[in-house]
C-alpha cells in the first residue's frame, strides 16, 4: 500500500481510544473527590526548563504585544506555571497537560505527550507517595507499592554502595553492563554512569506486579526538589525526590518542592553553565518563577505522571503508539 494510504490512519485502536477517554474521566473524578482544583496554564513560555537533558521545542510569535517577534518555548512540563499559581494561593491543584520534549522518540517516548501533574500544599514527598499509591490502586488496581531508597536499589540490584563507590567503580560497572563509555571525565562521567545503570539495568527490574517507589536521590539529581543536608543518620546530602516504577517502566517523578528562591536561582545558573560547557544553546532563566518563589511558595510536594504510560500499563501495550491516535511519524 502507498504510504499516504496507511499514514493517515490512527495507530491506536478503538479500544485504546475508549480506554483513554475513561482514564481521563477517572482521573478528573479522583481529584474532584479530593477537592483538588483542575487548572490550565499556557503551553508556551518565554523561558524553558533548564535541566541539561531536557530539550525544548520552540516556536515563534509575532504580533500585538510583540511587533519584533519573540521565540517561545513549548513546555516540557507545566511545573513553573503551576508553582506560580501555588505562590498566588491556589491551594491544591492538578493539570492534564500536553508537554513537548525534543529528541525523545521510542517505544516509551513520543515528543508530544500527556502529563498529569499535581501539587499538594502541606504534603512532603512521603505523604505524596501515599497518595500516588492510592491513585494507582484505584486506576490500575495495583496492590500497595513497595518503598526502596535509591541507595537500596543500587545495593540490591548491583551490589554496590552507590554513595561510597568511586567514579572508577561506577564507570567500570556501567561498562560491564554494556555501556560504551564516552570521553567525559570525573563528575560528569559518574553521573552518566548512574543514569545508565538506573535506566538500563535497574529500571527494567523494578515494580514487577506492584508499584515501586524509589526515593532519596543523589543531591546531583535534585532538579527542583529540596535537598536534605548530611546528618547523623546519613553522611551525604539527599534530594527529597521520588520516582515510581511499575512493570519495569518509569511512570512518575515527584518532589518535596524547593521553595528557596536563592537556591533555585543557583541551581538554574549551574544548569546554564552545564549547558554552555556541553555546547548547548543558551536559554533564559524563568524570572517569573523565581519572583513567585521569592514571594513565597507554600510548603508542598508535587508529582508528574505520564498518562500515556499509565494507559500502556492499563492495556498491556508494548509500544506507546498503541495508545496514541497519531504518534510523531503520523503527524
Amino acid at each position, binding site marked *: 500500500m502507498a504510504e499516504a494510504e496507511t499514514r493517515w490512519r490512527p495507530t491506536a485502536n478503538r479500544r485504546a481510544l475508549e480506554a483513554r477517554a475513561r482514564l481521563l474521566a477517572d482521573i478528573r473524578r479522583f481529584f474532584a473527590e479530593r477537592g483538588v482544583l483542575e487548572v490550565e496554564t499556557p503551553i508556551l513560555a518565554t523561558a524553558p526548563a533548564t535541566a541539561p*537533558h531536557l530539550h525544548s521545542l520552540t516556536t515563534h510569535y509575532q504580533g500585538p504585544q510583540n511587533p519584533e517577534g519573540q521565540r517561545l518555548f513549548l513546555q516540557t512540563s507545566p511545573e513553573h506555571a503551576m508553582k506560580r499559581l501555588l505562590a498566588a494561593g491556589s491551594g491544591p491543584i492538578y493539570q492534564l497537560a500536553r508537554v513537548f520534549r525534543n*529528541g*525523545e522518540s521510542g*517505544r516509551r517516548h513520543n515528543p508530544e505527550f500527556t502529563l498529569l501533574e499535581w501539587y499538594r500544599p502541606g504534603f512532603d514527598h512521603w505523604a505524596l507517595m501515599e497518595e500516588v499509591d492510592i491513585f494507582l490502586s484505584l486506576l490500575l488496581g495495583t496492590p500497595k507499592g513497595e518503598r526502596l531508597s535509591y541507595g537500596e536499589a543500587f545495593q540490591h540490584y548491583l551490589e554496590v554502595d552507590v554513595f561510597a563507590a568511586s567514579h572508577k567503580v561506577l564507570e567500570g560497572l556501567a561498562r560491564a553492563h554494556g555501556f560504551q563509555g564516552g570521553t567525559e571525565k570525573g563528575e560528569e562521567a559518574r*553521573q552518566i554512569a548512574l543514569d545508565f545503570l538506573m*535506566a538500563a539495568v535497574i529500571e527494567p527490574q523494578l515494580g514487577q506486579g506492584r508499584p515501586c517507589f524509589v526515593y532519596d536521590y543523589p543531591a546531583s539529581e535534585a532538579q527542583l526538589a529540596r535537598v536534605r543536608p548530611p546528618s547523623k543518620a546519613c553522611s551525604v546530602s539527599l534530594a527529597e525526590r521520588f520516582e515510581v516504577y511499575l512493570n519495569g517502566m518509569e511512570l512518575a517523578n515527584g518532589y518535596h518542592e524547593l521553595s528557596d528562591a536563592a537556591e533555585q536561582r543557583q541551581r538554574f545558573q549551574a544548569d546554564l553553565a552545564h549547558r554552555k560547557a556541553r555546547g548547548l544553546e543558551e536559554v533564559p532563566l524563568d524570572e517569573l518563577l523565581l519572583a513567585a518563589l521569592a514571594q513565597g511558595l507554600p510548603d508542598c510536594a508535587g508529582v508528574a505522571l505520564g498518562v500515556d504510560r499509565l494507559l500502556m500499563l492499563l492495556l498491556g501495550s508494548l509500544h506507546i503508539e498503541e495508545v496514541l491516535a497519531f504518534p510523531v511519524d503520523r503527524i
Partner: protein
Amino acid sequence: MAAYSTNEFKSGLKVMMDGDPCSIVENEFVKPGKGQAFNRVKLRNLKTGRVIDRTFKSGETLEAADVLETQLQYLYSDGEFWHFMSPETFEQYSADGAAVGDAAKWLKEQDICTVTLWNGVPLSVAPPNFVTLKVTETDPGLRGDTSSGGNKPATLETGAVVRVPLFIDVGEVLKIDTRTGEYVERAKE
C-alpha cells in the same frame, strides 16, 4: 568514511564496532526521568555472527561499514580458497575458510551464492536456499519402499551427508534445503 548517529540507527544498518563490521539488529531509546538519554543497541558481528548488546549515549556516532551483499557465481576451490565471480562484471573474488564456513559443503560449481563483501573482500558466503546434488555414496536403495518413513545417511558430491529416504540410490540427484540440511525431493534432471 560516513558515520551514523544514534538517531539514524535502524535494523540492517552496517556499522563498525571494535574494528569489526556489524549489522544493527535492534535499537531502543531509553531515558531516565531528567537524565542522559541512551540508545540500547543489539549488533550482529558479521565476522563471527555473534550478537552483542551495547548502550550508547544518544547522539554518539559509529563509523559506517563498507559492507555489500552481492550475488556471485561459485567457480572452484583450490583447497585453501573458494573462488567466486560476478556474473555482471566478471570480477573474481576469493573467500577463505572463515568466510565460507558451513556453506562449503553445499557449494557446487556454477551455483549462484549470496556473498557479503566487506571492503571488497568476502566476509561471509550463503549458499542458495535449495541445491541439487548427486548422491555418491549410500546403502543400496529398497525398491518399492516409498512410504515407510525410514531413512539412512547419503553422501553427496560436495561431501555433505544428509538423511534420505530408504529408496534413494547412488547416482540419483536430490534437492536439498541448505538452511535445514534436509532432503526435499528427487530432482528432475
